[in-house]
């Protein structure tokens, strides 16, 4: 057996036992053949036929627990920071198990799905989920790997919770450092809302931290009582009811303070407004501002929310119009986060998360798309003619596997080729276009990629609607008794996986556009094609989701999730190993 190929298969994330088996079975016909074999094996339809002749095709030995650790999953080990959307590292293994379980077993799987849901929830709330957790779970016939691909609740701060979260943070720092809330706010601003770092420094040298943050003195404020001076602003005499001052004793009446603060706020100062005394560095506490101009309080909170999100390097506003949620990167290493509205953001460039393409590629690509926008205009159509009977077909779903209503011809929306035997739709054929001029060739190549990039985006839009419907039906579900919660939940998760696949596929065409030809690209396109086919299948199933195909949806969701993971880890680790 070719050890080199074996290593490559393992690098791609395949289980070593499975890889060995695949190489044996394909008789050294090459890497592609081995991968093909593994994939065909994990395809549920083929699986059942394989099962029926199980005396011919040996079932691979399930990897025993001793074989599992160290080497096999080293590429996915958690100490390596991954820039991808988190997909369960155990995916390959689990899905192969699932497939072996087959549909028959799944019929009585009600209980096991219940179980899975419990684990799901456990994982959702478990912020620092760790390897141990996986190890435990690994012993079960656990077949919903997609939960890791779902957005974690702690990465999204709902619009209505932002102020609350910020105030809670302030309150915490204020009580630990024994400072006023406004001083705590300034301290937090100074440390970009990194509370841990703040406290660390504060314990080292509180005086220094306070000075560095620009708080000269932690201000108490006073009103009325024993004021002999007049208001330094309007000259009115001060009495118990209208006199106000900070520790610096710049006396002014309440009305002048209010005027002064309103002007400062209008000018855009929010946190850290100084006392009205000339060159007085004392910062006016928020409590004081809210006392003097109570109608400002709501605006004050708004601004607080704004600075809370915008001054925090790990946070972003969700760019979806009217969404208003804030997104938080779970750690410095994490470069993407997903909003509950479905949008996933790249923290580096603030655009939609674009793995596997990198930010620089996206910049060049977007520029190119702008430059060539006129040429590419024709692509944006939702109506095409059936390649067989020429009747007009309108596309109103995400799935690109089309069936003509009139003549029942099945074709691919992207290349208009026959769906049966449809393959390599994602590979630009250089030879076919070799008799054309260079400029023309370049343009055609670009259009080839742009077309697919664009089609996946269009599909994603349709499928996002599917997801919204799923979420709505989950809300609706509470008033209904004919569906089980877990079933509805599953649809939401499946659409989520579908959208992730779509988004990734969209950007694989940017990545592919800049990937030089060679064996690496061949393998990439192989995995891309594979993911594309599974995605279309999933999309088709979800569009006509009903009771009878729910098991298929579950199977294909798992499969899509696995293939997504293969593609992404392939991109990250390099396809041919190093």
């Amino acid at each position, binding site marked *: 057996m070719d050890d080199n190929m074996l290593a490559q298969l393992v690098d791609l994330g395949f289980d070593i036992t499975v890889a060995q088996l695949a190489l044996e079975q394909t008789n050294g016909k090459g890497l592609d053949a081995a991968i093909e074999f593994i994939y065909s094996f994990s395809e549920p339809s083929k699986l059942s036929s394989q099962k029926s002749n199980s005396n011919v095709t040996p079932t691979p030995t399930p990897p025993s627990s001793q074989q599992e650790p160290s080497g096999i999953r080293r590429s996915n080990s958690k100490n390596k920071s991954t820039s991808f959307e988190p997909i369960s590292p155990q995916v390959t293994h689990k899905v192969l198990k699932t497939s072996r379980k087959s549909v028959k077993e799944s019929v009585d799987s009600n209980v096991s799905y219940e179980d899975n849901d419990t684990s799901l929830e456990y994982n959702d709330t478990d912020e620092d989920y760790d390897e141990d957790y996986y190890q435990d779970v690994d012993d079960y016939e656990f077949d919903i790997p997609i939960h890791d691909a779902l957005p974690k609740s702690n990465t999204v701060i709902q619009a209505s919770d932002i102020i609350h979260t910020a105030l809670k943070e302030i309150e915490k720092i204020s009580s630990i450092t024994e400072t006023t809330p406004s001083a705590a706010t300034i301290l937090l601003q100074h440390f970009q809302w990194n509370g841990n770092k703040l406290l660390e420094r504060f314990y080292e040298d509180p005086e220094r931290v306070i000075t560095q943050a620009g708080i000269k003195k932690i201000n108490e404020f006073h009103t009325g009582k024993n004021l002999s001076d007049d208001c330094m602003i309007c000259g009115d005499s001060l009495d118990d009811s209208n006199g106000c001052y900070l520790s610096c004793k710049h006396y002014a009446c309440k009305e002048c303070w209010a005027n002064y603060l309103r002007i400062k706020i209008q000018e855009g100062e929010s946190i850290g407004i100084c006392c009205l005394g*000339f060159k007085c560095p004392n910062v006016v506490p928020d409590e004081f501002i809210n006392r003097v101009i109570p109608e400002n309080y709501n605006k004050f909170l708004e601004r607080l929310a704004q600075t809370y999100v915008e001054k925090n390097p790990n946070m972003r506003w969700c760019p979806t119009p009217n969404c208003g949620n804030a997104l938080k990167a779970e750690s410095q290493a994490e470069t993407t986060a997903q909003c509950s509205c479905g949008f996933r953001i790249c923290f580096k460039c603030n655009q939609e998360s674009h793995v596997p393409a990198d930010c620089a590629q996206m910049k060049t690509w977007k520029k190119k798309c702008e430059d060539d926008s006129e040429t590419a205009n024709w692509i944006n159509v939702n109506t095409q003619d059936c390649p067989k009977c020429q009747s007009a077909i309108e596309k109103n779903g995400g799935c690109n596997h089309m069936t003509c209503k009139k003549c029942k011809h099945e074709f691919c929306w992207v290349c208009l080729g026959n769906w049966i035997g449809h393959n390599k739709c994602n590979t630009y054929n250089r030879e076919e276009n070799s008799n054309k001029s260079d400029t023309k060739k370049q343009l055609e190549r670009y259009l080839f990629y742009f077309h697919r990039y664009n089609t996946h985006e269009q599909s994603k839009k349709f499928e996002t609607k599917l997801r919204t419907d799923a979420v709505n039906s989950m809300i609706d579900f509470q008033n209904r008794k004919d569906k089980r919660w877990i079933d509805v939940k599953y649809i939401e998760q499946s659409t989520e996986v579908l959208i992730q696949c779509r988004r990734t596929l969209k950007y694989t065409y940017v990545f592919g556009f800049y990937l030089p030809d060679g064996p690496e690209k061949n393998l990439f396109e192989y995995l891309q094609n594979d993911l594309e086919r599974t995605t279309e299948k999933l999309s088709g199933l979800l569009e006509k989701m009903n009771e009878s195909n729910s098991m298929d949806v579950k199977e294909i969701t798992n499969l899509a999730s696995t293939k997504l993971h293969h593609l992404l880890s392939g991109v990250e680790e390099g396809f041919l190993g190093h």
Partner: protein
Amino acid sequence: MNSLPKRIIKETQRLMSEPAPGIVATPATDNLRYFKVTITGPAESPFEKGFFHLELFLTDEYPMSPPKVRFLTKIYHPNIDKLGRICLDILKDKWSPALQIRTVLLSIQALLSAPNPDDPLANDVAEHWKSNEKDAIKKAREWTELYAASSE
């Protein structure tokens, strides 16, 4: 017009009763927010012996906003432009309602003693000041004699 705030009345009274040396500020009879100002050029400056006339206006926002001040007499100074506008931080972002007409005028007087060509309003003058200070001072003196001779 709004009734005159107590603060403006107080400031005006004090400006009249204890004027700052070298500064005369008189409110117009028909508009108590509008002041005619004369600053005497400080000794040992190129503006010595000159009488510089300015106008000062207190907007409705005063003292929350700074007074508007402008030179009426032509002056060769890197921080004062052809239209008499003055580049002085306290008249802009460094304004504080705790400042007064008196402090503003004293600051302008100080600016005549110490021109600051690094923060210029009149770029050509500032350039002149930086490249050949002696020559610039000479020109400022000429202008003082030429335009700022009259105390009226």
